[in-house]
């Protein structure tokens, strides 16, 4: 579907109502509303999620998978329902393929450690891209230090897309291709399906860091043809303290465990142990029970709105923001990343005149505008951009064009102070 088609479709969603679901956005500081433009970092939570968690803690909290009384059974069912909801949300073939971790970072470490230790030795190749988040770099560095694997990097084009010219050569002989489905700095949406196909053609496992993608787009892990996909609850209206890993059962089944302890075992003796079936095998210890309930509520919340709607809304906001900021500030603002909205999500990293991003963010904060200034946990990418920081405004379903206007207005203030 092209952008134009989408804009012509009637706007089914009342975004003002959506916004009013988020109590945080009703907060006033010095009488002024808070304008939250840091959702690529972590998202706000709708009342529905907050209430689901409080209600569960107040009336239904009980252990999972351990005790046999009804309340424990009900809590376990609620926990497993959340797993089913997540599976449905990303179109996983089976709920048992969804692993609850603590965050996407743990999901990626799980794969790098469990799969990596089993399958990678001296000289084996893992391919990453220049736009990865530290979460999809450091675990591989750790593995490289431990067992001498080689890391190769897919470079970027001038407008911040993956430069795939040499992809086949890079993938040649690789055992793993791990890449982001959306850059948290540039907003770039790489061609995931194509990359998975290329990985498989080279005999590599295709691992997708979908942290930034899943919260903002309809996700279909099967259509992607991916082998493993990591994402996080806290960026998709769900609570902190829980992350996700989806993987093909065959792979999850064959990998050794990552964290050992209760719940992930079949039997434990003084001289060894055997593991429980997936997903329990990867969920050692007391899991994020309350968090799973919250995440389930978040998924239902997003499903009710529809992820295509969310994407369309964010595309419109992004177009409006690009038009407004460039229209107003021309060459005084540099917005990184692709301008074609088909391949970019609602993340705007920018440089404003010669003012340091940290100072930009300070001036915006004066008007309660929350943007992130820094390296966005992507230092290798920042070096490529020739900056050690950018300011980043990122949108979500609760943002409006008013927020964009407020951002544009507030930038003027920076000029006043720094007189540049």
């Amino acid at each position, binding site marked *: 579907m092209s952008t134009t088609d989408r804009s012509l479709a009637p706007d089914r969603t009342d975004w003002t109502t959506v916004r009013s679901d988020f109590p945080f956005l009703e907060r006033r500081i*010095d009488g002024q509303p808070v304008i939250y433009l840091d959702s690529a970092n972590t998202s706000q939570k709708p009342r529905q999620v907050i209430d689901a968690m409080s209600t569960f803690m107040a009336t239904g909290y009980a252990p999972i998978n351990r005790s046999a009384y009804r309340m424990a059974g009900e809590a376990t069912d609620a926990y497993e329902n959340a797993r089913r909801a997540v599976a449905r949300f990303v179109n996983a073939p089976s709920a048992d393929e969804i692993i609850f971790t603590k965050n996407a970072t743990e999901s990626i470490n799980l794969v790098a450690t469990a799969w990596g230790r089993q399958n990678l030795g001296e000289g084996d190749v893992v391919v990453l891209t220049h736009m990865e988040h530290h979460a999809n770099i450091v675990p591989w560095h750790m593995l490289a230090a431990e067992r001498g694997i080689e890391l190769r990097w897919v470079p970027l084009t001038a407008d911040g897309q993956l430069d795939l010219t040499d992809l086949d050569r890079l993938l040649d002989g690789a055992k793993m291709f791990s890449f982001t489905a959306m850059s948290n700095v540039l907003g770039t949406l790489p061609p995931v399906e194509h990359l998975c196909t290329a990985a498989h053609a080279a005999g590599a496992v295709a691992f997708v860091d979908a942290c930034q993608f899943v919260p903002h787009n309809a996700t279909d892990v099967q259509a992607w043809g991916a082998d493993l996909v990591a994402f996080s609850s806290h960026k998709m209206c769900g609570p902190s303290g829980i992350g996700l890993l989806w993987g093909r059962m065959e792979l999850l089944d064959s990998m050794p465990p990552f964290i050992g302890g209760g719940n992930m075992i079949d039997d434990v003796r003084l001289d060894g142990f055997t593991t429980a079936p997936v997903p329990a095998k990867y969920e050692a210890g007391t899991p994020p029970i309350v968090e799973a309930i919250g995440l389930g509520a978040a998924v239902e919340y997003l499903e009710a709105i529809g992820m295509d709607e969310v994407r369309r809304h964010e595309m419109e906001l992004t177009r409006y923001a690009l038009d407004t900021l460039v229209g107003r500030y021309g060459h005084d603002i540099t917005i990184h990343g692709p301008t074609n909205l088909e391949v970019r999500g609602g993340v705007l990293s920018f440089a404003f005149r010669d003012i*340091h*991003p*940290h*100072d930009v963010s*300070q*001036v915006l904060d*004066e008007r309660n505008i929350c943007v992130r*200034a*820094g*390296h966005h946990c992507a*230092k290798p990418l*920042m070096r490529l951009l020739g900056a*050690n*920081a950018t300011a980043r405004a990122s949108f979500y379903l609760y943002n409006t064009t008013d927020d964009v206007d407020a951002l544009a207005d507030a930038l003027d203030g920076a000029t006043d*102070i*720094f*007189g540049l």
Partner: protein
Amino acid sequence: MAGLEDLYREIILDHYRSPRNRGELPTPPAVRAEGHNPLCGDEITVFIDVDDSEGEGVVRDVKVSGQGCSISQSSASMMSQAVIGKSVPEVLAVVKRFKGMMSLDTGNDDDTGADEPTIGTGGDGAEHPLGDLEALQGVVKFPVRIKCATLAWNTLLEALDQ
């Protein structure tokens, strides 16, 4: 709430626009230390040349390179001015005093002795023992910026440690 004018004092903006002692020093004789502010990505490199020929050691020269926000850059610039020509113990005393000023806890400046070194370009040491650096006092009202202000100083300490 503290206003932006508490943070962005004119002296600070002046040091930011025209940073003193920018550059590098040959190592050796100088030593070099790098500092990162993981929050905002600021990176700073401090070069310090200490003359150890007699006794305690005297800071012959300091240069600062790297990129950063107005607060980290101006603080680095002022730091360089404040320590050049001082003996190492004097430098340490200044660092301590500065970090005390940057600390959120109040009432921990109980070590205001009479022998405190005076610093900086301002000169009227008695009332303003930190000179220009006093301008950075407003940073404490913006706690997330404290790390920006102290970056150069922590990097200086690292360089001195070598």
